[in-house]
């Protein structure tokens, strides 16, 4: 039932609006709307009940194990939510003077300082609104750097074939063409191919380490040298920072610029799609190009640095300062974790991934990189299962839903066939991991004994398997009243 279907004409919810409609005769008729928009006309209870019941149709971290690779679905502490929603913090206008926001700005400044340390970078800007915007920022900074040196012939961004889709898409948005670098047999970038690819056209390389294949790029120092030697710069996709928090810093690996996904590593909620926050860190070379605003602390006062004091900045990426409420949540999380807690995140997310990989391998599943350590995530390929039973990765994913587990990331990275990218995160207990492994084992057995059971999954969710093809062919993107 859609909210529109419980709506009725003439119903109105008068506690939520001014008690009467004020006069608007000063707005000439020609500017005015003639017909009311199709918004629901429901009581407060009807709305509340409708959306409460809808919420119950979601899987979420708060209700289910959610080992979605590359997404770092870990516990989102409730304190972060509560403290970011204190009335004074919620009520502050983005253009309120800095004098009225010293408490808020102190949090932002301290967050910048912590992120600098964690990434090994010289400076951080908190402003990008998500990972992809952070990527855009980083690559735009690389471009601004080359441009600032009059080095305008560089037109290519190198991207490993295992990269997340946002990497090539970002390169395009920054006006670059994309050159893919293949992955070697063991999951590292193919160094020879890289060497062959770099050259005077190379603006930079986008890399995440550990990679989306769930392994640490062992030749990172050499890669950095190769790219730098060719005059290119290195961009670090920080989506996998959880794996190395407090263990190794991207700055030390040779990266020039990095984005972080605070909605992953710093546990701010994913909110069914967002918001996130994608702060960017830069080394001294790229620091002048950071987007504004950035917080500074001088003479006991916090204030914003803008394009006026940072004339080389690539500029602004959003109307205000960034996703402040998300940044506040990340700040609270960082204070709760502290220095040691950061390291532990890397340790236990890695332990969990390696444990699951080992147990799944024992249970007969094929690891994509059996000779490698898993980072905080790892890949299994279900190709053999498919060959033997006709059951594909998507079927197994759907069947997991029946067993009360959210599916891992499927069919990404693209180079591994029938793949599951599994990221348990550090906040899950061994019993939960064991339960998931049992469920996988059961499903593999079902695939042999009763494949229809698996192919017909899910059976217990609010809807059965949805017809995606029809969704795309017979577009139905909004509700319309019958009459």
């Amino acid at each position, binding site marked *: 039932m859609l909210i529109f279907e419980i709506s009725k004409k003439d119903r109105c919810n008068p506690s939520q609006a001014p008690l009467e409609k004020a006069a608007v005769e000063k707005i000439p008729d020609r500017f005015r709307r003639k017909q009311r928009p199709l918004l629901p006309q429901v009581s407060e209870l009807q709305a509340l009940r409708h959306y409460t019941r809808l919420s119950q149709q979601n899987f979420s971290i708060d209700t289910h194990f959610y080992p979605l690779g590359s997404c770092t679905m870990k516990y989102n502490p409730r304190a972060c939510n509560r403290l970011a929603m204190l009335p004074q913090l919620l009520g502050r206008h983005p253009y309120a003077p800095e004098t009225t926001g010293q408490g808020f700005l102190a949090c932002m400044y301290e967050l910048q300082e912590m992120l600098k340390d964690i990434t090994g970078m010289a400076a951080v800007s908190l402003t990008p609104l998500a990972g992809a915007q952070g990527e855009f920022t980083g690559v735009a900074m690389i471009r601004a750097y080359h441009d600032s040196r009059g080095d305008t012939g560089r037109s290519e961004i190198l991207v490993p074939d295992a990269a997340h889709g946002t990497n090539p898409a970002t390169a395009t948005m920054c006006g670059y063409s994309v050159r893919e670098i293949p992955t070697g047999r063991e999951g590292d970038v193919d160094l020879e191919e890289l060497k062959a690819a770099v050259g005077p056209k190379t603006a930079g390389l986008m890399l995440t380490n550990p990679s989306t294949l769930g392994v640490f790029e062992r030749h990172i120092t050499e890669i950095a040298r190769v790219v730098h030697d060719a005059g290119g710069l290195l961009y670090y996709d920080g989506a996998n920072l959880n794996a190395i928090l407090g263990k190794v810093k991207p700055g030390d690996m040779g990266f020039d610029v990095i984005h972080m996904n605070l909605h992953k590593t710093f546990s701010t909620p994913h909110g069914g799609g967002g918001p996130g926050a994608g702060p960017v860190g830069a080394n001294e070379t790229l620091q002048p190009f950071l987007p504004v605003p950035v917080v500074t602390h001088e003479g006991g006062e916090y204030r914003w640095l803008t394009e006026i004091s940072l004339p080389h900045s690539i500029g602004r990426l959003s109307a205000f300062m960034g996703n402040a409420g998300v940044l506040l949540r990340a700040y609270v999380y960082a204070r709760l974790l502290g220095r040691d807690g950061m390291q532990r*995140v890397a340790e236990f997310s890695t332990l969990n991934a390696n444990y699951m990989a080992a147990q799944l391998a024992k249970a007969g599943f094929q690891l994509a990189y059996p000779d490698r350590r898993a980072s905080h995530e790892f890949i299994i390929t279900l190709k053999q299962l498919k060959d033997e039973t006709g059951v594909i990765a998507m079927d197994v994913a759907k069947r997991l839903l029946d067993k009360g587990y959210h599916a891992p990331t499927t069919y990404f990275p693209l180079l591994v066939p029938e793949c599951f990218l599994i990221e348990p995160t550090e906040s899950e207990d061994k019993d939960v991991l064991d339960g998931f492994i049992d469920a996988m084992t059961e499903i593999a057995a079902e695939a042999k004994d009763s494949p229809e059971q698996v192919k017909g999954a899910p059976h217990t*969710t609010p809807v059965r398997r949805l017809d*995606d093809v029809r*969704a795309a062919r017979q577009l139905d*993107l909004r509700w319309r009243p019958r009459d």
Partner: protein
Amino acid sequence: MPFIPHTEADIKAMLEAVGVDSIETLFDEIPAELRCGELTNVPPRMNEFEVTRLMLERAEQDGYYINFIGAGAYEHHIPAAVWEITTRGEFYSAYTPYQAEASQGTLQVLYEFQTMMASLTGMDVANASLYDGASALAEAVLMAVRTHRKARRVLIPTTVHPVYRQVTHSIVTNQDIELLSVPFSKQGGHTVLDALKSHEGGDLAALVIPQPNFFGVLEDVDELTNWAHRHNALVIAVVNPVALALLAPPGEWGDAGADIVVGEGQPLGAPLSSGGPYFGFMCCRQAHVRQMPGRIVGRTVDATGNPGFTLTLQAREQHIRRSKATSNICTNQGLLVTAATIHMALLGPEGLERVAAQCHANTLALLEKLTAMSGVERVFDRPVFHEAVLRLSSPANDVLRALEGQGILGGYNLTQYYPELGEAILVCATETRGHEDIDKYTFHMERIMSKRRLDPPCAVKANPKD
């Protein structure tokens, strides 16, 4: 260990299963020389009580102000139910709904949102959000250029929010797109056809039309839309969703309506929160939907024929189309959209209209009182929605600071972006700024201005540039 559930026994059993004797061993593929030491700039951990206290103190430090600033972010009443439901774990801690069958809650909310936004803007379809209003405008420019195919020049009047113009510039210029500005009428504060004349003939991909514009002024959207279409340019509308409860929807502008509509969703249930998270929205005609950036939800049926919802048209997106995607956007502002959907459901058409009308009425009341003082005057003579530009006889900065001392944020200082307007401020009174607040503002403004009239601070300060 905060947020880590492992017991000693678990750790032991897990290490055994992996076949290593310490967790440290699991990091042995990282070259030793890269390993870092302690994070010296990250302070040791605090417990939840300590952090709570810290945050309460910081929040107290910032305090409450009576706010008359708008300029792109508006203080509206948000029903308590909105965030009480939005922060339910099932919405709050879910990912993007990739597994549709396990995400019907979020997906249906998005479908309902798309329906509401399409109707509010008078367009065919809406996406499931972009980052914010400014970046949505940038995406609209990119989309217009992709759609138009021939032209790469886009007209953006200076009545568009100055930061939106900056952001659009930061985002689109790497793709060889030219942004051309259009000056505004000194008298009306709006964009006049005359100012567009010089661009006739040139290849234009789109004209951006803000309604209301940054000055709060209502633009002649019908004429502008028709002009653009006559010159084979698309129309990108930038609108305030609350204003749309009163104002003609972009889909009905001119003879054919706008082609792409974007805006800042914040007024629909997002708290001001120092600037975010908010969300951008985008709507367009059905014909252009395959050029839209961002997630889109569609209704379909399941294996048993029952209706259900799923992400659709994913072939536009980065995870499928990679370097050929319509945008690199991945994570959007989903939770804010959930809030907006609930917000709109709670207000309904009548409620939203009352909010809009009250904003308008409060702003007019404020303007009447303020301009009754000597030293305060309206700059533009055109009708406004809920914001207006005032010119002051004293330096705007000093006046705003004096008001701040009285607990009032008196408006947005326009001198940085529009020095040509003199000592001008942009004021806004939403439905939350009733008589009491307006009277308080008026009272203090009167005191401040008359003090300055009688006793100007000092000779140097009389210079408006100071």
